């Protein structure tokens, strides 16, 4: 880059692209999927429907893993047993979201958090939302407990837990 010569590239404005100033072609891949839940997550979801959180334990490294997996990724061997965990835990980290995935704004902010689950190995958590709490009242390490949907409303989904609330 000797000197400040002109670099290639032709920037377009939003209007250029969307109002027909340049020629464009549209395509819609219509990409839809049906993911197999597999052995571990299949059981995890079935247990959520029952109002329980389940993990898997590796006897070699002695970690109880959640979300459960049939293999230990550190020991690279099959995991050994199912272990029921509590539906309470601690907030490992949290944030306050004002936007949706397409960058549009939401009316009410949500509180995403990583919740470390009681009974699992230290630091083992999963992503969920906090509820029944104001963002300003949340703190790191806060004790929380799952608030479940009513049994007949549960379908075997991570959203069978509505959110975690302080307790």
């Amino acid at each position, binding site marked *: 880059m000797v000197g400040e010569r002109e670099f290639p590239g032709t920037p377009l404005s939003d209007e250029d692209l969307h109002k027909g100033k340049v020629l464009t072609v549209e395509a819609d891949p219509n990409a839809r999927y049906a993911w197999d839940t597999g052995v571990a997550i299949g059981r995890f979801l079935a247990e959520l429907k029952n109002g329980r959180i389940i993990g898997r334990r590796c006897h070699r490294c002695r970690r109880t893993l959640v979300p459960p997996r049939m293999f230990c990724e550190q020991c690279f061997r099959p995991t050994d047993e199912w272990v029921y965990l509590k539906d309470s835990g601690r907030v490992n980290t949290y944030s306050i979201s004002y936007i949706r995935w397409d*960058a549009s704004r939401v009316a009410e902010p949500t509180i995403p958090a990583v919740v470390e689950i009681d009974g699992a190995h230290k630091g083992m958590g999963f992503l969920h939302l906090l509820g029944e709490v104001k963002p300003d009242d949340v703190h790191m390490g806060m004790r929380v407990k799952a608030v479940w949907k009513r049994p007949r409303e549960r379908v075997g989904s991570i959203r069978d837990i509505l959110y975690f609330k302080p307790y």
Partner: protein
Amino acid sequence: MGLRRVAIVGAGMTKFMRRALETGRELSWQASRMALESCELTLKDVDGVVIGTAPDVFDGVHMKGEYLADGAGGWGKPVLRGYVGGGTGVFSPIQGWYHVASGLFDVVLVVAEEKMSTCHPHPQGAFLSIFDNILERPLEPNLIWIFALEMHRYMAAYGISKRDIALVSVKNKRNALDHPCAQVAENITVEDVLNSEVLVWPVNRLDVSPVSDGAAALVLAAEHVAKRVTDKPVWIDGVGWHLDSAYWTNRELCYPKYVEYAARMAYRMAGITEPRKQIHVVEPYDPFSYKELHHLEGLLLCGKGEAPQLTADGVTQRNGDLPVCPSGGLMGVGNPIAASGVMKTAEIFWQLRGEAGKRQVPGRPTCGLAQAWGDLMQVGTVIVLRT
């Protein structure tokens, strides 16, 4: 180790833009041709091509490496396409390096390209499947959640404030004013950052790099060719790469271990035992303001939690003791996913040759480092360059 010495002998790039007229192939050609012209080599001299480019779904083409190959000098040549998220931008030069170091190729063209503007309504839609499709997507997340959660964990672990972190946005966007390809260079203050729209607290709009189109390219040559082609070959003295688990909620987010392991691999190869003293200029990956700090610590350039103080003390300014992101980084120049890291590698190349123009750091640096990062907070890729 039985490996040959490899140098970077040329570099080129396009402007980084929110939306480009050029197709991905045209962008690739513009950057590649500039890189070849900068060292007066032609396509005939190129033995093989390494292409780095992010998921096909951004540009909306299938088999993006193959698609770009014609514009990246790959016609009728051995071509390799690699991808490790944002880490690609330093991983591609590493792949180019082992092509040449192994003795199989004498001259390799490394090209990275992204045309994210194709993806509608927003490239974020393509990022959605970075989340676990079964356990996380039903919660309706967006990509910024993960960064916000990591940023908050980092802040809480070391008592770092948003104000401390905002200094990175200010520095990099100001540095970018001197980069002719910069997309979002501007003079802002810490207050501007703190007052900008809160996206996912603690991430504000001015804490985030933009969506970009762009391409960048490097020419790598074996020692006997490099010495013939240029007076100032920039030697690739160290490379490292490392991947952590995709179970991001099971990891300690306040420290990027995988960056440290990648750095150690590169430092061992380069004979670096005191990185802070032996490395003169650094381009760590800064897709978010806090990431520059996170990565400086992972690169062992300062202790854990100490990077904010380094920044506040002015050490990381261009005329400071350890200039960081003299290019303006992703925060100022732009972030076409795979091309960003090649831009950073090119920046170190130009800095070590004294060719960075207004961005030149004083003191004739002879050793520099570029680092990229990507995937689900997983990959560290590091390259150490020396003249």
